[in-house]
């Protein structure tokens, strides 16, 4: 026992330093849990990520497409198929961000157990967001794959969609975590879903270009990260990349970073008494 308790100072210092912030081992441990769960739920996740864009493409692409044949130079079905990527990313990141966080923290108390281990709130939150956003990036491809059956042409640039979806998803998942950290009850999420997420998803250039909107709304739409996501996804997928896309990407990265830090800050305050 004495050998155990008499820890020499240098070794101790080493240990403290080795446990850096955002320790990869801690991130991997938390993500491992998500991976295990995903192995159980991947079928349902994949099913909905295929069915949702299919419905949009049938309803808007085919239904609406009979009225509107082109937006600019882009065929309407291509326009919607690429636009819906952002919708898929939004739904597969903001909702897990809100609900998983709230349920694991408040109902299942999983976060309490994890924080008793050598894992900090920053690592916990970051790992959870990372996992959700990787998943969101990959599933962001689903609408394009569905689009192929509706006449969208494959293009190598589409592979970048994973990356764009990842960054966008990171921001939206972190936004969800932030909301969960602020919400008093899980019902509060309804306010956010109806007043924030729904308008965001409609006014993002997904189904119609925001240039058709009145000036005021158009300005507001510029602040919608989803609008920037839609713009880049469409340009890389349809091979119409322009310099402005760099700006769109910069906005997405900023959004992700901002939400990430805010989510950690708020949840830290709620998880640690």
């Amino acid at each position, binding site marked *: 026992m004495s050998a*155990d*308790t008499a820890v020499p100072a240098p070794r101790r210092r080493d240990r403290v330093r080795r*446990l850096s912030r955002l320790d990869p081992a801690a991130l991997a441990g938390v993500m491992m849990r998500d991976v295990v769960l995903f192995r159980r739920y991947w079928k349902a996740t994949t099913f909905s990520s295929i069915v949702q864009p299919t419905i949009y493409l049938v309803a808007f692409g085919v239904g609406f497409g009979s009225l509107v044949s082109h937006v600019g130079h882009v065929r309407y079905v291509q326009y919607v198929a690429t636009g819906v990527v952002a919708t898929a990313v939004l739904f597969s990141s903001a909702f897990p961000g809100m609900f998983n966080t709230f349920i694991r923290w408040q109902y299942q*108390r999983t976060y309490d*157990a994890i924080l*008793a281990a050598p894992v900090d709130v920053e690592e916990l939150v970051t790992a959870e967001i990372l996992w959700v956003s990787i998943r969101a990036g990959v599933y962001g491809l689903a609408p394009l794959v569905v689009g192929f059956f509706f006449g969208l042409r494959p293009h190598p640039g589409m592979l970048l969609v994973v990356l764009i979806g990842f960054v966008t998803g990171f921001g939206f998942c972190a936004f969800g975590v932030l909301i969960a950290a602020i919400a008093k009850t899980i019902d509060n999420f309804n306010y956010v879903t109806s007043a924030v997420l729904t308008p965001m998803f409609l006014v993002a250039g997904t189904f119609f270009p925001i240039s058709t909107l009145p000036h005021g709304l158009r300005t507001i739409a510029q602040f919608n990260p989803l609008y920037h996501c839609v713009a880049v996804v469409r340009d890389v997928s349809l091979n119409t990349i322009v310099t402005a896309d760099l700006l769109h990407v910069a906005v997405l990265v900023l959004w992700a970073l901002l939400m990430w830090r805010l989510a950690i800050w708020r949840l830290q305050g709620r998880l*640690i*008494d």
Partner: protein
Amino acid sequence: MPAAAPAIQLEGVTKRFGEIVAVDGLDLAVPPGVCFGLLGPNGAGKSTTMRMLTAQALATEGSIQVLGYELPGESKAARMEMGVVPQQDNLDVELTCRQILGVFARLYRVPRAERQEAVERALDIANLRGRADTIVRELSGGMRRRLLVARGLIHRPRLVLLDEPTVGLDPQVRQELWSLIDSLRSEGVTLLMSTHYIEEAERLSDTVAVMSGGRIIAQGTPAELVGTHAGREVLEIYGPPDRLTAVESQAIARGWRHRRSGPALALLGAEGLDGEAPQGVRRPANLEDAFVALTGQEIE
């Protein structure tokens, strides 16, 4: 050999939740290798104290050291060598026993090559080898509690915090857990255990601290506490309520230490009352008498 540094040391620790003072100027030193019992009624501040040791609650005032690490700054290093069994079950209900242990083996940085073995060992500790692939939701309450304990031991911690580890367990499972705690202690692991089962504290703890209102009001071996606060013998007087009331006012007048205990009135330190004592049944004093004398609270 110099006295070993305490495994846990709290100095003047206060924790406030708004108006509520959960822990109130607490001083506590737990030497390495002992089982230290925190005994106290509901709301005494036991869980809050435990949560401060993992930096899941931050002290409003005072200083905390765990395994030589200064909290909260170095708490992550301390948590690395510490196992926690919380009062409230926080097992991942969607995972199987094996998956939970696997995840926590990673969280506690058990090296990859040793993980498998650590999980198997923990399954043995929990006595759940046969249910290793059962989802937690489908386990019985006792099984869940055993898994909760095993999860906290996955990385062979040298300090274990047990917050009311046997609440709601049937007597047999409680016995099993008690022997587990005994064997951990004989391996040199330091244990801090909160409980409000007197018998548990008496049976397992080398030292018991009685906590009430966020502070420690008495501390010692169970025998010392009984001796100091309840004497050697207790005289229990049974009878109709008015007789008990009469004896009680006599006790107050004479300055005898006493307490109401269900249908009886108990006089503490009865060995000193010879001759003048009323009729009653004598029995050896126990930790419960000391506890009630100290906290003024009845306990199950």
